[in-house]
């Protein structure tokens, strides 16, 4: 090792590359995922990470539970109203460059949970690079998504950068829920007395005997049938 650089002959072989490509090569083969697992998709994610599917083959086995040390966020599971500010906060704390996988139907679209508390797709609020369909997706799908991220890095694509236009990204603070009054919503009303006549008529037609009575009768009938062996 006493040779200096002028004496190098190239006999050992050498490659030439662009610095950016070298950096991208390093990045895509050492993705450090941040698991944002909130539901059953997280179980599949754990299976993907463990020995059977072995995400280590793709250099992404170093799970970091600190956003400061990770560059790939895997949102796996439902995100509810109370979780969304946390998700935005954690995403903002990740250093750049960063990527995001939205794993499963719930994280991507809200899934079957079309209710008052469920965020209908995290991509409304944070930029997502790869969506994985499935409920929950197979580990192969997650591996495929990781490979898509790797290809994206290899191509040297610009990151999806979505920021609040009005503020510097570092100053970003998730905004909490706006109150009803501020959103111009009417006060909730509802009373047993104020049930419209039309509803009463409809209900009488729909449930002549009442749903509970009918259900009980049905259960009774089923049970008797089982007992008598008929």
């Amino acid at each position: 090792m006493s040779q200096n650089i002028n004496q190098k002959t190239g006999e050992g072989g050498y490659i030439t590359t662009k610095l950016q490509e070298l950096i991208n090569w390093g990045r895509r083969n050492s993705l450090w995922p941040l698991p944002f697992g909130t539901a059953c998709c997280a179980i599949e994610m754990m299976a993907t990470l463990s020995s059977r599917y072995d995400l280590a083959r793709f250099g992404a086995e170093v799970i970091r539970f600190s956003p400061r040390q990770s560059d790939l966020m895997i949102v796996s599971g439902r995100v509810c109203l109370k979780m969304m500010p946390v998700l935005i906060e954690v995403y903002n704390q990740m250093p750049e460059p960063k990527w995001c996988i939205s794993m499963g139907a719930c994280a991507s679209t809200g899934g079957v949970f079309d209710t008052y508390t469920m965020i209908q797709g995290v991509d409304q609020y944070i930029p997502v690079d790869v969506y994985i369909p499935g409920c929950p997706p197979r580990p192969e799908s997650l591996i495929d998504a990781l490979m898509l991220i790797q290809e994206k890095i290899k191509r040297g694509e610009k990151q999806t950068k979505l920021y609040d236009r009005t503020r510097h990204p570092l100053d970003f603070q998730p905004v909490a829920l706006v109150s009803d009054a501020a959103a111009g919503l009417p006060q909730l009303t509802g009373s047993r007395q104020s049930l419209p006549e039309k509803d009463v008529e409809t209900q009488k037609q729909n449930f002549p005997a009442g749903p509970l009575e009918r259900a009980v009768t049905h259960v009774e009938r089923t049970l008797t049938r089982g007992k008598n062996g008929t």
Partner: protein
Amino acid sequence: MALDLPSLLASLKEHFGDDLLAQTEFRGQHVLRIRSTANLPVLRYLRDEAQFEMLTDVTCVDSLRLPPGMQKEYPERFAVVYQLYSLTHNERLRVKAFVPEEPCEIDSVTPLWEAANWGEREVFDMFGVVFKGHPDLKRILMPDNYTGHPLRKDYPLKGRGERDRFQKYTEMPER
């Protein structure tokens, strides 16, 4: 030692009279229907005299839009439901206290059972029933600044737009 339910009922009737609305049974499950104003003394009696030492759950039923034939079962809109368990007798008892819409409040049973604390907070969060004397009555499931009580029957299933009210990211302009 099995529980002597008829004599328990008789003594309850003697102690509380009209506050005891009804007692029903369905498939071996006993339900006691009471006025909301009497929940604390009735439950204290059940705990101390009838050995129902354990409160397994506190929950609530909203009977708005009940089919007309069933409205007599619910004299008021809300029913706060206490699920009791007796370790001594290996018996369970359900106590329903009917809470009107206005004022929508009932005494807290946290002086009797510590276990009621979070259950009552959940009922308050989801149904808006106020528990008087609760040590820390605040929301437990929904965010603190949420308004409305989502498990009430008049609350829209898909919410009132709360899930769309977060700050949205927009594309950053090129520099």
